[in-house]
């Protein structure tokens, strides 16, 4: 790659790439993010290459390997452009047929997606209910961009927003555009990004300023940021270049957790390419604007997502939050002004400057503009990443896009915001998803994790799970956070064992309030949310555990017992899987479980075909 030394050269480079795009040539798009690779996308890519080569179709069919498109449940999948035919859960063996059909312009009806509601086959991706309800401004770029080739990003208009900004030579205008867009931080707190940048731009100490991309996504069940990092790393780099121009920052840092190896790899490659092309580094495109971006790998502590802990971690110290004020915007990395934004926030920036602040502000609701990616996981039929406009109702995400429950049980709640958030019961699914409504309902928007729970989920168990996560992930500096999470976990454990008392429940609430009040950083202040929100909406379940010594969802092992009902046809399957040899019975006769030997692992229930194993 030749280093571009002027804006004119870049424009020519971009025009050349755009002209060479030839969108009419059929292209097999295979999403291969970490999720896709785990479900076998690599196998599929290999098969596709083999088949295309074998049939000598190199010029006639193209292959594009991209990041995750969002529909993880149906991966590995293939999207055929330009018709946008969608083949879900493709087996490597079926690749030959897909290549052949694509070459001759046909569609393989038997491999298409079947709408579970109607039983009808759907050809185009955009008609699949999962995709139909979304507004995919960020995720649509995942389909068009090959994350390993900067040419692919540039050909689709990439870096033109950054160039536009550099050409205009008006940092103030950029800040105003971001302010006018109404973009709020996607990392959880929803702080207006334009305002943050304005404050950074105002800092004048001449010793340098930092921009940070917070890619330390650590909430269980959330992976929006990972997919953006893997699928479109250049959008973050472009966003940071724009941010640097607007605020006068000279160094950017992408703090990414080391547990995201693919994201680290794609980012490193993208950075190297951008540097080689002269888009990052000293005198960008021959102008007097310089901006360097470094990658810092985090060691995977949840608390390092918190601004001040993140800064200490970047400085090479222990990841521990500190008192704010002074805020990072005044005193951040090495005491220099620092602005920290979330991955998704950065990814939105090029779009705002490319399409105009007004267009961005028009989507969503006033005060909550733009779109937001959520990772929809748990007891939901369509697991994956969904992007909706802010202010969409929870209902529409769960039922229309998510396709309702994954099993027979009814959905009873959804946890938003991960361990810092709270649960929202099904009765309140009419709530619009925005920062303020969710906070009012006792949860938070968080970075976009949505864990769906159905009637087989015990709320005490959920609270206990999050508390166990938090007691390990608290940095341990604030005594009430460290001990408080441990003690809350201890009480929840007692309750889930049927040893809890009403007094303990009161103590739990009192303690939760004190932890919220007395701790220093966002981790401690939000740590009691899972307890408080489940107590608020599902107190009945807690009382069932305490007074009736029962777990209504059949989860808490000490309060349930397994038995085999009349529908048992004596197939012996459960006898074979029982690790304790607790099930006895002759073939073709109803089996019985020895309650003394039973360890309540549930293996028998999972193999029983006649649904004869009951939990009570």
């Amino acid at each position, binding site marked *: 790659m030749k280093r571009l030394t002027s804006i004119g050269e870049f424009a020519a480079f971009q025009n050349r790439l755009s002209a060479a795009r030839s969108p009419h040539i059929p292209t097999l798009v295979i999403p291969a993010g970490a999720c896709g690779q785990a479900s076998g996308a690599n196998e599929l890519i290999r098969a596709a290459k083999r088949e295309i080569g074998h049939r000598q179709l190199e010029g006639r069919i193209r292959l594009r390997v991209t990041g995750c498109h969002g529909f993880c449940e149906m991966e590995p999948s293939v999207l055929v452009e330009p018709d946008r035919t969608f083949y879900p859960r493709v087996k490597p063996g079926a690749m030959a047929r897909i290549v052949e059909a694509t070459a001759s312009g046909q569609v393989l009806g038997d491999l298409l997606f079947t709408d579970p509601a109607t039983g009808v086959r759907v050809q185009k991706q955009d008609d699949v209910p999962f995709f139909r309800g979304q507004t995919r401004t960020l995720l649509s770029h995942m389909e068009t961009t090959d994350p390993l080739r900067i040419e692919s990003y540039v050909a689709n208009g990439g870096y033109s927003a950054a160039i536009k900004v550099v050409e205009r030579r008006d940092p103030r205008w950029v800040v105003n555009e971001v302010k006018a867009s109404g973009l709020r931080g996607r990392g959880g707190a929803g702080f207006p990004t334009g305002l943050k940048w304005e404050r950074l731009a105002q800092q004048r100490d001449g010793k340098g300023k930092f921009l940070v991309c917070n890619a330390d996504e650590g909430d269980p069940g959330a992976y929006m940021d990972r997919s953006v990092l893997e699928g479109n790393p250049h959008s973050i780099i472009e966003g940071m270049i724009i941010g640097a121009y607007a605020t006068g920052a000279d160094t950017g840092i992408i703090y990414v957790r080391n547990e995201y190896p693919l994201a680290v790899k794609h980012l490193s490659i993208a950075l190297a390419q951008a540097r080689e092309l002269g888009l990052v580094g000293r005198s960008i495109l021959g102008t007097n604007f310089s901006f360097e971006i470094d990658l810092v790998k985090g060691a995977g502590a949840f608390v390092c997502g918190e601004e001040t802990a993140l800064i200490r971690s970047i400085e090479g110290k222990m990841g*521990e939050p500190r008192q704010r004020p002074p805020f990072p915007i005044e005193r951040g990395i090495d005491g220099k002004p620092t602005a920290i934004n979330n991955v998704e926030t950065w990814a939105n920036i090029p779009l705002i400057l490319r399409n105009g602040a007004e267009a961005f502000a028009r989507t969503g609701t006033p005060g909550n503009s733009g779109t937001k990616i959520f990772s929809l996981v748990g007891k939901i039929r369509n697991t994956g990443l969904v992007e909706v406009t802010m202010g969409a109702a929870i209902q529409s995400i769960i039922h229309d896009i998510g396709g309702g429950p994954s099993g027979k049980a009814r959905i009873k709640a959804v946890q938003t915001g991960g361990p810092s958030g709270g649960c929202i019961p099904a009765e309140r699914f009419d709530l619009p998803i925005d920062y303020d409504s969710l906070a009012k309902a006792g949860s938070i928007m968080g970075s976009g994790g949505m864990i769906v729970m159905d009637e087989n989920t015990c709320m005490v168990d959920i609270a206990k799970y999050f508390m166990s996560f938090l007691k390990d992930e608290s940095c*341990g500096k604030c005594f009430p956070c460290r001990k408080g999470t441990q003690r809350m976990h201890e009480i929840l454990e007692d309750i889930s064992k049927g040893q809890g008392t009403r007094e303990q429940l009161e103590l739990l609430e009192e303690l939760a309030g004190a932890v919220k009040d007395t701790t220093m950083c966002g981790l401690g202040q939000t740590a009691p949310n899972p307890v408080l929100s489940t107590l608020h909406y599902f107190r009945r379940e807690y009382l069932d555990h305490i007074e009736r010594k029962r777990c209504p969802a059949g989860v808490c092992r000490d309060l349930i017992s397994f038995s085999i009902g009349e529908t048992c046809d004596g197939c012996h399957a459960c006898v074979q899987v029982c690790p304790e040899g607790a099930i006895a019975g002759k073939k073709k006769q109803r089996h019985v479980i020895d309650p003394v030997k039973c360890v309540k692992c549930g293996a028998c229930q999972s193999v029983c075909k006649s649904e004869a194993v009951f939990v009570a």
Partner: protein
Amino acid sequence: MVNLTINGLRVSVEQGATLLEATRFLGFPIPTLCHMDGLSPYGACRLCVVEIGQGPGTRLVSSCTYPAEEGLQVRTASSRVLRARRMVLELLLASCPQSKTIQDLASAHGVRRQRFRQEHEDCILCGLCVRMCSEQMMAGAIGFRNRGEGRSIGTPFDAKSEVCRLCGGCQYVCPACQLRCTYTEPDKAICGGCANLSAPCVEKERFDDMMCYLNPCVACEIRKD
């Protein structure tokens, strides 16, 4: 100068002063555990919380770390503050019942019961010793390790420290530990003879390199050389 209101009283303090300093200047008592004049503020024990702000935006902050801000409204003993402090003390008592300092604080704040499962820990991780060692003794022999439940204080890899001068500063500032001060095992980093009934110094040969820098030792009055 920064002007603020504490419990309804106006006060001007120097730029950069903490709320704790401002409050103490006026004479309002605030309990502290992890704060010590001469060591940098840390904000770990959260006993020193005060309520700031007005209306729905009020919140609790640790006064030992929060800087005095122009026009700030501070309440040092509102019911919310007292409730929070009592819960912190109850938690402390549940973990470290043997500490005289904690017992006294609990008693002074009317904490008469402890509803959690009793533990007997010898460290509340207030970090005074760590700061003493690095800021006053310039040794930096001990530090924090790990996070969450696994957090602890010690020398790197628990090896006998090369830089520890056995000054005993860490023990001196410790509000909780009693156990550490009674150790006389040769592989422990610190002598602790002065707090020990059977001073190790009598076995001078065995504990030679562990003796504190006070020469002669204040406890056994044995000279090192």
